[in-house]
């Protein structure tokens, strides 16, 4: 279900916690699985739950509680824009509108070519860098402008 590499990463996470507390690694394990699979199909959640010796429903609760997990297939590049108040005061909404126009999609939609998914995010703890967006959950792009968005999209399109 998951690659050796992913399993090794999960094992490293498990090792952070005391014996018998494997469940503590569920968040990391789901993240690692999501990076490999692109999103979290339910059979992957069930596999991860079994790997950590926890009931699948408990893993599903976690997967649905934290909003960076994707429970539906998404584009290769997920772009999450913060539109919370501090960002909104500094162009966050404008950036989001620009992305919608450029990609031709709304929030929670994926471009027909499967490249991009646009999401509205909550506070990323980087309000001083507004506007900010996240690429595929793990890379934060700060101080965005329309020009920087253009070059980001160009770079991602070329990948």
């Amino acid at each position, binding site marked *: 279900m998951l690659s050796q590499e992913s399993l090794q990463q999960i094992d490293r996470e498990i090792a952070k916690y005391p014996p018998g507390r494997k469940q503590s690694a569920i968040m990391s394990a789901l993240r690692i699985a999501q990076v490999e699979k692109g999103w979290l199909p339910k059979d992957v959640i069930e596999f991860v739950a079994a790997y950590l010796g926890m009931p699948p429903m408990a893993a*599903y609760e976690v997967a649905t509680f934290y909003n960076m997990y994707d429970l539906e297939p998404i584009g290769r590049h997920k772009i999450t824009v913060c539109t919370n108040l501090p960002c909104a005061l500094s162009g966050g909404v404008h950036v989001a509108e620009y992305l919608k126009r450029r990609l031709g999609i709304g929030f929670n939609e994926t471009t027909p070519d499967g490249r991009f998914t646009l999401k509205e995010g909550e506070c990323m703890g980087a309000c001083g860098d507004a506007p900010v967006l996240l690429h595929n959950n793990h890379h934060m792009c700060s101080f965005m402008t329309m020009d920087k968005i253009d070059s980001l999209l160009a770079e991602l399109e070329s990948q």
Partner: protein
Amino acid sequence: MLEIEIDGKTVQVPDGSTVMDAATLAGIYIPHFCYHKKLSIAASCRMCLVQVEKAPKPLPACATPVTNGMKVWTHSEAAVKAQKGVMEFLLINHPLECPVCDQGGECQLQDLAVGYGGAHARYREEKRVWVNKNFGPLIASDATRCINCTRCARFTAEIGGLMELGQAHRSDRAEIMSFLGRTIDSELSGNIIDLCPVGALTSKPFRFSARTWELARRRSISPHDSLGTNLIVQTRHDKVMRVLPGVNESLNECWLTDKDRFSYEALASEQRLVSPMIRQDGEWQAVSWQAALEFTVAALQGIVREQGGQSVGALASPHATVEELHLLQKLARGLASENIDFRLRQRDFRGDAVRGGAPWLGMPVLDIHDLRSLLVVGSFLRKDAPLLAQKVRHSALRHGLRVNAVGPNAEDWLMPVAARALVAPADMAAALAGIAAALAAETGKPVAETLAERLPADISAEARAIAQSLAGGEKSAVWLGSLAVRHPRAAELHLWAQEIARLSGALLGFIGEAANSTGGYLVGAVPGAGGLDARAMIESPRRAYLLFGAEPDLDFADGAAAMAALGQAQLVAAASVFDSPALRQSADVLLPIAPFTETSGTFVNCIGDAQSFHAVAQPLGEARPGWKVLRVLGNLLGLPGFDQDDSAAVRDEALSGDIRACLDNAIGDVPEAEDAPAAQAGRLQRVADVPIYFADPLVRRAPSLQKTADAAPPAARMSASTLAALGVSAGDKVRVTGTGTVELQAVADEGLAPGCVRIAAAHPATVALGPMHGDLSVERI
């Protein structure tokens, strides 16, 4: 002790009490939804907010610990304001459909809304709608009614042992669901219907059939497993509409097994026998009671006259009442027959000669809470005794009870098992001997002289681990389960278990198979001197049989043999709640008797409680209470002592004296069986469970239970290594041959000892296989 003042009342409460506990003690009701005394405290519904002196904010009574001198107001202006605020939030997304909701009339939300709800709704935004779930044949879902109290989810995880339900998502999208929309398969699932404070979870079999206020409530006792679960049976117009738990803190608490809750559906089965019937010239005819009884009496008298009393055998179900079993044994003995038994699935009766008394659990059910170590020998604990298992689970999860097991089966009991000796049936005695040897080494006490020479040369690691677990000098117990009791060398297993208990200072107990497994002994429904036991009555066929409440094909250790024995008898008089092809094939006269709801009676449970109950409905058709049928038969046979006025008189006669004094699990010496079944090469040992929903005639005919996962048709379950050795893959069809042959699907099951095949008994699909124990051959088709 702490002192607290609630609404001006001063009460003393033990340390560690919550305000809710104190209120309960003071007889003050604090509104609540998520709080339930048997579940962990969520403190999430916030309905129980109360005013506490010096607290700046209202506090939840369910989670606030009492401190000495605390002052609490549960109905002050501040408290009621908080409670009304919460009620409004609960109602904004709750559909206004009480008239069509099955919970109407017994809905906590409805009740409390009367007191705390507003007259009009201030919420005028969009309402939330959730899709109903398919939780299986027993539980109906109306998801939009859910108020997210999470009682159901907590129940599955904390009491059921497996988190089948959870609350996914967050915010006001938080929603109770199962993983992947799976059905809820726990044998305790129905309790979430009782727990649900609203109409989100209701009983599928019961829904839309009646309103709670139309129903009469009657106390009763479960006729199923050995716990003696207390029931509330609800009836309308003489028909049982549903069954709810009768709270008994020392037995079932407030829980029911699904079997107890839903078996009532069988009471209305089309297979109910509603008229006495006689077979005449191969044709079955409904006849009057008088005709049926006269026929029976005449035939019996003729056989006894010609061939003596010992040509008559009386075989009764362990689910029969004390009154029925007592009158049956009295009747048989009146006919000068000592051939009486109710242990129909048992094989080894050597213990009868050396038994101390009636087998029982050996300890109060409540004491499971304090056990530190338990050894379960030969048991399908979770399905045989779901609520007993639940108590063991609770103790294991919460109080550190170490559960150990010996036997061929290791299905998931949803509790941690510390050490397990997974051995084939034929190796169980040796495994127990190994534990005894390890215990002797551990404790320095010698093994009893008579057993010393039977000790094994090597002691397995599992035996050592189990011995260490038991030897701690703390409170421990050794329990024998149904597989041990039905084992061909049951008496030896009993003997070894006794030795283990002696060496470790543990209590010895029997889990018990049925509602009257202990009661049957107490009333003497077992063979007397020179009498034949259940096995012998089949192996040495009698001329006449009185069959009481049992189905010949499904309720015996070897259904095929039982059918054959009955088939050649001159007279089989069968008293039965239900009609069945097997009965029609083997009996000559069918006497319709009342199920537990239509007769008064008594069951003695596994701890020796004699619990009597009354009929909750009139007998269906011509059916009559079994004890009355037997009394009339006794009269017609001219036997003395059949003139009791009511069932209480029968009970008092049957259970005279101190029951506790008759309970004794001691066993004297039993020699090693000479015909110990040595597994022949290429053959597998059968492991036969009695599936939970095939265990007795009532539950077999409960339609909703028959749609559950636990009612799936039997398969041939084997470990991967056993399958591989046979060249069989999981999913293959296999031909299984015992004394007869059946075809089944092979299923991989790692919870089985190598060299074993687990095939359920008590099921029409496997009757032909013959005995529940012994060798089978398995081959791929």
